[in-house]
């Protein structure tokens, strides 16, 4: 559920590229990246065994 929106918008962006709609493709890409950053914030919470 957390990851799904970014895949859906990435798919939409690829489909809009196939259809030849550049503006919608870029808008979908931007939303996909924002959703992906949100999913990264949620899922990248493991404690690492190294000190940075």
């Amino acid at each position, binding site marked *: 559920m957390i990851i799904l929106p970014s*895949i859906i918008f990435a798919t939409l962006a690829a489909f809009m590229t196939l259809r030849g709609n550049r503006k919608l493709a870029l808008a979908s890409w931007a939303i996909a990246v924002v959703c992906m950053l949100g999913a990264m914030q949620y899922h990248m919470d493991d404690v690492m065994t190294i000190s940075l």
Partner: protein
Amino acid sequence: MSNGSGSMKVTSYPSYLLNLLALAGICVTLLAAFFFQLVMGEIPCPLCMLQRIGLILVGLGFAMNVRFGPSAVHYAVVILSAMTGAGVSLRQVLLHIAPGDAGFGSAVFGYHMYTWGFIAFMGSIIFSAVMLIIDRNHLGGSGHPVRTALGSVLIGLLVLLALGNVASDVLTCGFAPCVGDPQGYIFQR
């Protein structure tokens, strides 16, 4: 091969072929990920799914260069997507970097898939930087879609692979947050 005089000009650029090859490389990488999932039975973890999305978004930048002609905006799409994906890859590399850690999933040619993912993302950034130099006089794009048979097939394949990942995510996680180390699909639990 192309429709219209404008598209003929764009497809004659060396970057058209190079972006087509880069898009094919992304599609092969995503197909390899599905091979390991469907044939080898390795269920993708949340970080693996995020790296796949990063690859799709990188491929989108190449696809836009193929479809609309080379543009600085399209190369920016590749670079920003690759940086996001590389962040996930690097995080997973660091999770398994300690001596004695067997890593997650099987190794391919000696490296785990997240390590290959990091190499692919870095390669995409370097490729885009070089292409920005090669295309420096042709970065306006064509202004209209360029439809070629091979371009449409590869972009169509990217759409299908993205749809496959939608199905994969739903079958792995359902509509709940994904678990860190999934042991099977939702219909197997």
